[in-house]
């Protein structure tokens, strides 16, 4: 059976939704961060597949940027989570609600 473009797109859609649900359902800030990374990587898969299918290189270029950005985001995210952990001794996002209403 031939693996067509739609298979890639479907797989990445599923991965993306898993990432979204992870963000919505998990409480650990680090797991949420990982879920976001999963979303980004799902999009990367889409981009690479589309790029390959169309024989256009722009999509792959964007993937490089996404990877770099994801790394920077991970670094910043971890830094923020650590700073907060030192204050609150927890990474449960439901515990962070100083500002509301």
């Amino acid at each position, binding site marked *: 059976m031939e693996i067509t473009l739609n298979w890639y*797109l*479907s797989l990445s*859609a*599923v991965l*993306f*939704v*898993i990432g979204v*649900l992870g963000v919505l*359902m998990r409480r650990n800030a680090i797991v949420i961060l990982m879920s976001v990374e999963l979303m980004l990587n799902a999009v990367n898969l889409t981009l690479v597949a589309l790029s390959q299918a169309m024989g256009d290189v722009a999509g792959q*270029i964007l993937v*490089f940027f996404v*990877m*770099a950005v*994801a*790394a*920077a985001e*991970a*670094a910043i995210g*971890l*830094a923020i989570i*650590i700073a907060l952990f*030192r204050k609150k*001794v927890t990474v449960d996002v439901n515990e962070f609600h100083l500002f509301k209403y």
Partner: protein
Amino acid sequence: MLTDFVPLFLMMALALGLALSLLKLHQLLGPKRPNLIKTAAYESGMDPIGTARERYSVKFYLVAMIFIVFDVEVVFLYPWAVSFRDFLAADAGLGVMMVVSFFILVLGIGLLYDIKKGGLEFE
């Protein structure tokens, strides 16, 4: 027009359904026979002693983060390295070398900043 969107809805439904079912499936299908050893934090290996909230030196994270950033920046060098031959052939080698040198310089500034601010001193 609306019928054009049917595949999209199907795909959205499929993606959502699959994702949700995968999340739930392992709970339903997996046999659940917990015992003392299985519920331990580390099933095999050292028994955890003391608090899990032990503080690591923040340097530990710092180095990890610096590593991630510099490590990933290298991806930009791959396409450059692959196509460098073509640039050389087209007699644009010097220019492309200068450009990538500037990229390295920017990374170097970051590294310099790190060193100067003591980010890499591991006491």
